[in-house]
């Protein structure tokens, strides 16, 4: 039960920190992340949401609504264009749920899921923004200079943070039983 577990505090706090760390990392390391021609986008918040799905066990966090709210705030605060991430973040959760039915989640399959999630997120972001006329870079450049570096950065996040976040969740889930 989400309401009775310690995750009730741990999960929103983590979401909060991940949300603002994305912006802070982009600011502090902007010289490295956005050095021409490559641009890497930090998606710690997606990492937190996706890993929460795999580590929640039987706690059942209301992930989709959390994702929608986080997406709305992301739109308001970071981009100023409302309506994209408030749908994309829940979509990523639903996609992960759909994929996870077919595989047992292990470290390697979670890497694969996360790879697909980030790819979908960036692709849909690209298509939506080019539809409303915000960007005018061609698709090939996007694949090579944006998608590939972004995937690399976020997979590094995943590999580094998988076990720490796993133990954090395991501990918060356990405490409620004892």
């Amino acid at each position: 039960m989400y309401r009775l577990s310690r995750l009730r505090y741990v999960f929103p706090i983590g979401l909060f920190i991940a949300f603002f760390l994305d912006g802070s990392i982009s600011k502090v390391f902007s010289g490295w992340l956005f050095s021409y021609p490559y641009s890497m986008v930090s998606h710690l918040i997606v990492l937190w949401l996706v890993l929460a799905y795999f580590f929640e066990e039987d706690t059942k966090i209301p992930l989709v609504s959390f994702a929608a709210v986080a997406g709305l705030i992301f739109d308001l605060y970071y981009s100023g264009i409302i309506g994209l991430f408030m749908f994309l973040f829940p979509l990523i959760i639903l996609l992960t749920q759909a994929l996870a039915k077919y595989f047992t989640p292990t470290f390697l399959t979670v890497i694969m899921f996360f790879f697909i999630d980030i790819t979908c997120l960036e692709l849909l972001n690209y298509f939506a923004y080019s539809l409303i006329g915000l960007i005018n870079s061609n698709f090939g450049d996007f694949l090579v200079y944006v998608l590939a570096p972004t995937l690399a950065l976020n997979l590094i996040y995943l590999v580094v943070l998988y076990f720490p976040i796993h133990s954090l969740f395991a501990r918060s889930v356990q405490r409620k039983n004892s």
Partner: protein
Amino acid sequence: MQKFFSNRRLVIIVVALVVCFGLMAGSVAIRNKKATPPVVQQFGNDVVGFAGSVVAYPVNALQGGFDSVSELMNAYQENQLLKKQVSEVAQVKVRDQTLASENKQLKKQLKLNNSLTDYSTVSASVLTRTPSSWQNQLVINKGQTAGISKNMPVLSGAGLIGRVAEVNKTNSKVELLSDSDESSNRFAIQITNKQGKTVNGIITGYQKATGELVMGQVTSKVKITKGTKVITSGLGGVTPKGLYVGKVARVTKDDYGLAKKIYIKPATNYDNINIVTVAELNS
């Protein structure tokens, strides 16, 4: 597949798509036309900005710490170099003061209140940057209450870096000149060569590959040499005159060979911006 695209799901998906694009188009339109975003959005941004400082300030302090350590490393050499410049700067400053007061007196005699070079500044620190490869935006910690309004030019370090794109009560968003949005870098600028001849124009683009600003469609015959300083011209009435933009890097013909294209090396590096100054035209 039959089960996945059941009737109810399909309806939900279509509604979500329509709402999604409606909201996006709406907010883009509001962003382009209105001076401030809707009150709800403003309020949300203020609250989030306040909460965000809990994370942003420690991280910024950490960055400041690392920066000062790395600056300490080459402080000695820099000091030697700067010592030589200090004496010159004092001289220039005194002269600047004399000229400014003279200017004031002359304006008084002419009964001229404020001209395009009179502007006041608001300093702000940068909270975060948009984590996106498409929008080069900074969030700064001053807003409407500090006197900032939309479209004001923003400076950092030596020169111009962008303009205010969205204003909330206590924070605002700054679009950098390097942003892929085409309207973000249209500033009226002028270049004056050694003979005192002036070329007016606007910034028409940003070349990512070289990090240079482009001033296109220059039909003037005035000869511009490399290294000439570029400043804002104040035409248009929002930007003050005389904000430093950068130096001319090279001059080429445009694609049709009719007009000139002037490439400008910006005065400031758009990465690693911590403190910005927003310039407000006095009127």
